[in-house]
């Protein structure tokens, strides 16, 4: 918290585009006298524009509020309800939130830079650690981008395995969200239930990929291993259980008066606000925009399965809760269709350039050994080019912008993290609300800090 700020230092920091380009404290939220009016408008949330270009609600932005009536407090980065190391600086008037500024970067690990030093074969071990609640989606978008540059068409079984795993991941991620959201709103039983069901999904992942998280299962060129024996039964039991339990959650939360009080008309966002702030996923859909990349720009085989896009009306916390709860059911529906329609065939592409030889061949053939060695040390070369691939992760549009210079390592790997972009809508959603609701709103954005900071 920094109530006292040297105006001179701040101006120098703002103007210092010189040598070092550093400025102490520049990322923080400042008292109004030392904040430029344009920045203040942004923090207050008036930047949302009408289609004709006028600034929205410029009349009711309370820029003129005297400074001595407000207080700037820090929330995080160690606050338990910020879901990691999110730090919010809030300007409060009593209990009412006036301005919010998310300060991020506490979990920055330079994964985009690391990605430039790893080969495409190693790349998926890196990206899987970004959004640690849906690692398979990260691997998927990286693999799809690499395959788009390579010009590879995956065998049908690969596509369907990927789709099924991606939907199971959505189930597990949304269950985790239900759990933490319940926790934030004081429903401890929901926390226990959410983790309990998520554990079922994770055990299936463990059986298939060997790990509960950070699988490195979906790789450029296919998946790491075929589905285990008896997977149909496992998945069917999983689907039956999770689907039945969603109705229990419904009973527990949806009609619960305290829960409804705390979610309805809290953290409202309008459709054009969400679009202007580039919010995607459940946040955008809660405002009534039926935008789901699985439906609107289909990838994998989403155009061959039957599912509904869940859309809200008011753009408040309750809509976002209802969307995620129903998306679990829709994902279960897709997974059931995957079990039904799973094609037989190879679980990876038989392209000698990207696929290592089977283990048995290495024992009997020198060429296979060399081939295996070359792929895992040197990697495969990817033609020059650049591509942007986007998928619908549980949190929104997960994009991968990949630039190749023709070598075996990405020249530039940029991940468009949905949580990173969605966090921008926090100041708008929190403004005018109560401090106690801030926790609920942060939870409903569902930020995963590993992905925000990358």
């Amino acid at each position, binding site marked *: 918290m920094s109530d006292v700020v040297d105006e001179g230092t701040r101006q120098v*920091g703002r103007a210092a585009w010189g040598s*070092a*380009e*550093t*400025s102490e*404290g*520049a*990322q923080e939220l400042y008292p109004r006298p030392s904040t430029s009016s344009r*920045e203040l*408008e*942004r923090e207050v949330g008036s*930047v*949302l524009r*009408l289609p004709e270009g006028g600034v*929205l*609600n410029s009349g009711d932005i309370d820029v003129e509020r005297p400074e001595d009536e407000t207080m700037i407090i820090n929330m995080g980065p160690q606050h338990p309800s910020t879901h990691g190391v999110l730090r919010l600086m809030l300007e409060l008037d009593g209990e009412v939130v006036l301005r919010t500024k998310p300060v*991020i*970067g506490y979990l*920055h690990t*330079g994964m985009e*830079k690391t990605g430039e030093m790893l080969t495409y074969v190693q790349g998926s071990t890196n990206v899987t650690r970004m959004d640690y609640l849906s690692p398979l989606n990260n691997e998927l978008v990286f693999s799809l981008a690499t395959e*788009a540059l390579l010009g590879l068409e995956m065998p049908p079984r690969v596509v369907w395995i990927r789709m099924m795993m991606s939907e199971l991941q959505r189930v597990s991620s949304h269950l985790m969200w239900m759990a933490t959201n319940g926790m934030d709103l004081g429903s401890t039983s929901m926390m226990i239930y959410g983790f309990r069901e998520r554990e079922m999904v994770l055990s299936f992942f463990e059986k298939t990929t060997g790990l509960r998280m950070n699988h490195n299962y979906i790789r450029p060129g296919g998946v790491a291993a075929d589905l285990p024996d008896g997977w149909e039964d496992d998945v069917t039991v999983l689907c039956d259980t999770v689907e039945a339990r969603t109705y229990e959650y419904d009973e527990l939360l949806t009609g619960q008066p305290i829960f*409804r009080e705390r979610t*309805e*008309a809290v953290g*409202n966002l*309008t459709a*054009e*606000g*969400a*679009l*202007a*702030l*580039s919010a*995607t996923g459940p946040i955008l859909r809660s405002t009534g*925009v*039926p*935008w789901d990349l699985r439906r*609107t*720009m289909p990838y994998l085989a989403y155009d061959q399965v039957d599912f509904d896009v869940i859309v809200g*009306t*008011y*753009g*408040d916390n*309750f809509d976002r809760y209802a969307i995620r709860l129903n998306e679990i059911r829709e994902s279960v529906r897709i997974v059931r269709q995957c079990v039904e329609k799973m094609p037989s065939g190879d679980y990876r592409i038989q392209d000698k350039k990207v696929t290592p030889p089977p283990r048995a061949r290495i024992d009997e053939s020198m060429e296979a050994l060399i081939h295996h060695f070359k792929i895992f040390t040197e990697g495969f070369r990817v033609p*020059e080019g650049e*591509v*942007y691939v986007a998928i619908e992760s549980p949190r929104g549009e997960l*994009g991968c*912008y990949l630039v190749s*210079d023709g070598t075996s390592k990405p020249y*530039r790997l940029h991940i*468009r993290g949905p949580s990173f*972009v969605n*966090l*921008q809508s926090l100041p*708008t959603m929190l403004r*005018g*609300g109560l401090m106690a609701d801030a926790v609920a709103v942060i939870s409903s954005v569902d930020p995963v800090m590993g992905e925000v*900071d990358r």
Partner: protein
Amino acid sequence: MSGAGVDPGGSRPAGAAGGPAGAAVAPEPPPDVVRRAGPGDVAFTPRDRYHDLVAAYRASGFEMLSDLCGVDYLTHPGRSLPEGVEPERFEVVANLLSVSQRRRVRVRVQVPASDPVVDTLFDLYPGAEAMEREAFDMLGIRFVGHPDLTRILMPEDWEGHPLRKDFGAGRVPVQFKEAPGPR
């Protein structure tokens, strides 16, 4: 439930740009822009017309800036570009998305190393705020008109821009508490 309580975003005007039922005007790119076929449209534009081009796309129904990032082409100068586009060291890539037309377009603008400055898209898309800060933080590209161009991921006292190709990652010696001193 009602949305009549707190409504910070203001009221929703009729026929907002949000809905997919919004006006679908086919965007005509300005004639000086080179376009290339491929997965998604790619538009190249000179730096001084970058903002106008994006504004034209915005007006023709691209409601969302889905992504913005910078690329440092220091060690890959011979990349393939369409004719008429002079390669520069930096590139800013803006991914625009039209929800109503279900289309994407990628605007690539060349930014010279001697003067890494481009116009901000913040006035067109408020969502550009964090993305441009990230591009500034990672690559040192400055966005003119951005309301709060500060570091976003790196610490404030960090020197240099880590995603630049000449940044030299891993060359900073790690200090361990128990390690013997230099003497």
